Structures are given as structure tokens and as C-alpha cells.
């Protein structure tokens, strides 16, 4: 083999490794495509099915817009950036953001695409307000997330970072939430939660071993399911991006509201140890999978296949 040929093989291999995350994005475990034309919330249609106890039935496959953590459009929706065909708005502040029509876009190579995606995912104004002594730490965590992110190495995302469950099963006394894992560079383990709704109280915080998902208990407030969680470890981050660490005293309140074929989810994070004030996510609206026969397909095996190739601080 000539040196020239070997060099070409290295170039080709490197190029394929660069393309791998994009290929994984495109696969999405065989589910609906995630490269939507906009990040506008889906319009609810159809009736809201009711459970025998008179509350809305949340049961369903809530990945009609693909897994809520995947793809730039979903990630922009998650941080509250509402992109329409020719107008963009930051939902939290109401600020209009300059938008240029699709047909006038300039060409970009793969690196430019990655860098732009990093900016697009972080442009929302709805950020938790930490105490000043932690500002630099949050910034450093985010800047070095390729090494610092606790969900790397196939660890769980944790509550509430995992966001909207892709599948919900509702029974009279508990809910089951399922979150498919992801392969590639953003590798997280498949997670599930079993959430009692039978009126029980939380265990004393001192008696709980801190975990990634904490102890969750659900109850209805009108037509809204409220899931209250305590008892976390201090390892996870509480949003998909941003380096948002927390203490073991974090308290999370999730709210899920079904309207026809849409499910609105928010999470409020209280952590007086590190935050100046409670923080609430911008509402994320998931769409019921339009295929009534769809099932949640098997997740790709979680493996940090790209991690060894990370050589810069550029985010993904």
C-alpha cells in the first residue's frame, strides 16, 4: 500500500466519522423524520380521550415530531425558538428574530453546519438564573461539554433533562414513561419511569438515595397531570444543553396536559442551593404519532462510538 493511498483512506475514514452523527440523526430509530420545516407548535386535532376515572388519558406514542431531544428543529423548539417560514420568535421574551427565506440560504459545509447547529440550539433567552458564584461554572461546563457532560458514556439524561416521554402508559394507579436511548456522539441510555398516582406521599428526602430520576409521584390538578420529583443525585444536568448542574436538593415539578393529539410538557426546577429563583422550561408540545399502529422501536445500542474522535471543544 502506498503512503498516498493510506493517506486517502485516513481522509475517507475521517469524513465518514464526521458524517456518522448526521446519519444517526436521519435514522431516528425508524420513527418520524425530525428535520421539520418549522418549529411551530402542532395544532391540536381530535378529541381528548378520557380515562374511566374522568381524567384525560395520556396513553400514547408521543413521538409524532420524533424524539423531542433530537434534531435541530426539536432542540430549537425546546429552548423556545419558534421558527416559521419567514418569521421567528423567542417565546419567552416575545422578541422577533430576523429570518431569511429558505431559497436565499448560502451553502455550508459539514463543519459550518455543525457550528451553526451549536449556535441555533443555544439562542433561546429562557435561561435559569444561578447565583453569581456559579455563573462561571455553568459557562465552563457548557464550553467543555464534550468532556464534562454527565450523560456522556451512555449515562442517563435524568429528570427533567429527558424532557417529554416518547411513550406514556396510564393505569388507574400509576403512569409509565419511556425514553428511548440514543447512539452516536450524543449517547444516552434508554430510561423508564414508573410514577405512582395513588395519592401516596414522598419519602423523607433524608431517607432517599439520590438517583438520576429521583422519586416521582403524580397527581391530577384539573386536567393536568403534575409529577413531583425529589431525591436526586447531583450528577445530572437539568436541561439538554447549557451545563445546568444542580444540587441534591433539587425539586422538579413536571406538568403534562393533553389536548387532542398534542401533549404540552413543562418542568419547573427549584434548587435554592444554586439558583436565585425557580426556573420553568418553555412549554414543549409533542405530537401523537399519527400512525395508530406504530410501536416504539428498539433503541440503537448505546456506545460512545464517536467520543474518541473528539479533538476540539466544538459542541454537537
Amino acid at each position, binding site marked *: 500500500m502506498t503512503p498516498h493511498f493510506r493517506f486517502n483512506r485516513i481522509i475517507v475514514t475521517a469524513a465518514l466519522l464526521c458524517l456518522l452523527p*448526521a446519519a444517526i*440523526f436521519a435514522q431516528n430509530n425508524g420513527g418520524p423524520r*425530525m428535520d421539520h420545516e418549522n418549529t411551530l407548535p402542532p395544532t391540536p386535532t381530535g378529541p381528548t380521550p378520557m380515562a374511566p376515572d374522568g381524567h384525560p388519558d395520556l396513553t400514547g406514542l408521543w413521538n409524532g415530531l420524533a424524539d423531542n431531544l*433530537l*434534531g435541530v428543529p426539536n432542540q430549537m423548539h425546546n429552548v423556545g425558538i419558534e*421558527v416559521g417560514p419567514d418569521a421567528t420568535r423567542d417565546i419567552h421574551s416575545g422578541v422577533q428574530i*430576523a429570518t431569511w427565506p*429558505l431559497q436565499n440560504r448560502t451553502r*455550508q459545509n459539514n463543519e459550518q453546519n455543525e457550528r451553526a447547529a451549536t449556535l441555533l440550539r443555544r439562542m433561546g433567552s429562557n435561561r435559569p438564573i444561578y447565583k453569581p458564584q456559579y455563573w462561571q461554572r455553568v459557562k465552563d461546563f457548557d464550553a467543555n461539554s464534550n468532556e464534562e457532560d454527565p450523560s456522556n458514556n451512555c449515562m442517563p439524561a435524568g429528570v427533567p433533562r429527558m424532557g417529554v416521554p416518547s411513550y406514556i402508559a396510564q393505569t388507574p394507579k400509576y403512569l409509565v414513561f419511556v425514553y428511548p436511548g440514543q447512539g452516536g456522539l450524543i449517547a444516552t441510555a434508554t430510561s423508564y419511569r414508573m410514577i405512582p398516582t395513588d395519592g401516596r406521599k414522598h419519602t423523607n428526602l433524608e431517607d432517599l438515595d439520590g438517583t438520576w430520576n429521583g422519586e416521582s409521584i403524580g397527581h391530577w390538578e384539573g386536567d393536568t397531570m403534575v409529577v413531583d420529583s425529589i431525591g436526586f443525585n447531583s450528577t445530572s444536568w437539568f436541561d439538554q444543553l447549557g451545563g445546568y448542574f444542580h444540587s441534591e436538593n433539587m425539586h422538579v415539578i413536571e406538568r403534562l396536559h393533553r389536548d387532542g393529539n398534542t401533549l404540552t410538557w413543562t418542568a419547573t426546577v427549584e434548587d435554592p442551593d444554586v439558583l436565585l429563583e425557580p426556573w420553568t422550561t418553555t412549554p414543549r408540545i409533542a405530537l401523537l404519532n399519527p400512525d395508530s399502529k406504530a410501536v416504539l422501536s428498539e433503541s440503537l445500542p448505546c456506545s460512545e462510538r464517536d467520543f474518541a474522535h473528539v479533538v476540539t471543544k466544538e459542541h454537537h
Partner: protein
Amino acid sequence: MRATMIKVLAKRAVVITAFAALAFQAAAGQSSKPSAAGAADDAAKLNTSEVAKTLKVAAEALGLARWSGVGGQRLPEVDVINTMEIWGSGTTYGLSQASKPGEPGPAFKTEYHATLGYNPPAMRVELTRTSSGAPSQGGAAPQQTIEVVRDKYAWDESEIGGGLVPGKGTATPAMAAVDNRLLQLWILPYGVIKAALAAGDKTKVSTEKGTTVITFPLSEQLANVMVKATLDAQNEVAKVETRSENPALSDLNTETEYTDYADHGEIATDVKSPGHIVRKRSGHPVLDIRVKMLDANNPYLVFPVPENIKKVAAH
């Protein structure tokens, strides 16, 4: 024979389709050109079209207008810049009553650190200044100031985030400085493009001595300030001049030159920033800074308003 024919026809079809697509794109790109001149409406359209084109190329030159092919290939291009952090060093000048127009006041060797955001509009400028004429052999002790503005609030911090947590520094109101501090945010190249886009029909484009000039008014607190921005050959914002119509606000008459554009980030963003910033206020030099690094990756930067500042503003 038939198979060969089909192959040839298929190839032709591909070529024709490709040309048709290119022609469509070219037509789409030209569609904003006016078809007739003379009428006032057409003149207005011409300017509107020219403004849109000019602001687009200026936004692209800065890396402000972006889209991503990684899962976002069907989304339009948007303004991606919200927060950023700048580190630099150079010279700042005090304002001296004795100084004649054009002459600098006392000079200070300065370490410059600014954090800023456009949504909401906010900026924190940390200056560490050492007098160049040190009075003693040991030299003058560096003086640190932290000046903050957010929306209609301005205050000085004794340390970063001072006044937010009991026992951790103080925040001193500086409400009279709101306009001046906000102006610093909007005359940065990114602020210029954002504000020019926001000004809509009030933004005009012209040519002066072969260079492109954008003029527009600022809004809200700075509504009486006109901005004139000059682009260089790469469509980067090279010079920004501001003029206030109110004689009492002559502090808002500034002139800033931006040169040596590059991606100055430790983490590459394809966002370009000036490497050299020189500013005059009311004719006097006030700032001459070399940018050492700029984090444009929308870093975590927040500007909560301390309670005591809100109370002062309410009165």
C-alpha cells in the same frame, strides 16, 4: 440499442432538470429587483430591496445569518447571535475638561472584558485600568470598574453579580448612564445589523465614495439617535457613527472603527469579530482595544437586575 437510447434520454433529462433548477434559483434570487423606475412606490421598493440585500450580505459577513444542515436543513436562515463575551486589552481615555476636540484625555492601560446579550438587551463591561503615568515607583494600583445595563436599568457592581446575594458585593444605581451603556451594545457590528433590520422602512442604504453606507434610527430609549454604518469591501461593519438630535445628549455622538475581522473564538463558531476597536466620543478618543478572544457561542451570560436597582428605578 433501446437501452442505450433510454440511458441517453435519462442523462438529457437530468441535465435539463439541473439547468431548470439553476434557472429557477437565479430567477428567485433576482425576483426582488424592480421592474420599473420613476414612480415613488418603485423607488421605495428599490430601496427596500437594496436594504434587504445589503443587510443580508452584512449579516452573512459576520456569521450572524445561519442555518444548519444537521437536522435543520428545512429551516430558514435566522439571526443566531444572542450572547457573547469579549476579552481585549489596550488603552482607554478619561474625559478631561481641558481637552480640545480630537485630543485625548488621560490615558489608562486597560484590560477589557465585556459580556453582552441582545435578548434581553444587556451588557456588563469590566475595565481594569492602570494609569500610564504612575505617580510612584511602584506604579499606580489598577482600578476596576464593572458597569452594567439591562433594558432601562443601569448599575455599577463591586464584583461580578454584586448585590444579588446577601454578603456578596453591592450594586450601585447608575440610571443616568442607561443610554450611554445601551449605545455601546447597539454600535457593536452585531447590534448595528440587528438594529438596522429592526428599523424596517426607516433603514436606508446609499453609496459614499464607493463604499456602502447604512443609516437608520435606534429605538426605545435611544430613539433620538441616528446611526450611520459604513461597510468595507468584505461587507463587514467598518465604521459606525452615531448622532443624537438632542444637544443635551452629546455624549451619544460617537465614532467607532472596526478592523482586523476574524473568528476570535477558542471554540470556532464562524462568527467574525473585529480584532481592533477604536472609539471616539464627542470627538475625543475614549477606547483603543485589541480583541484577544471572543466567545460567540451563545454562552451562559445573565444580567438579573438587583432588587435595590429596581426600587430606585421605580422612584
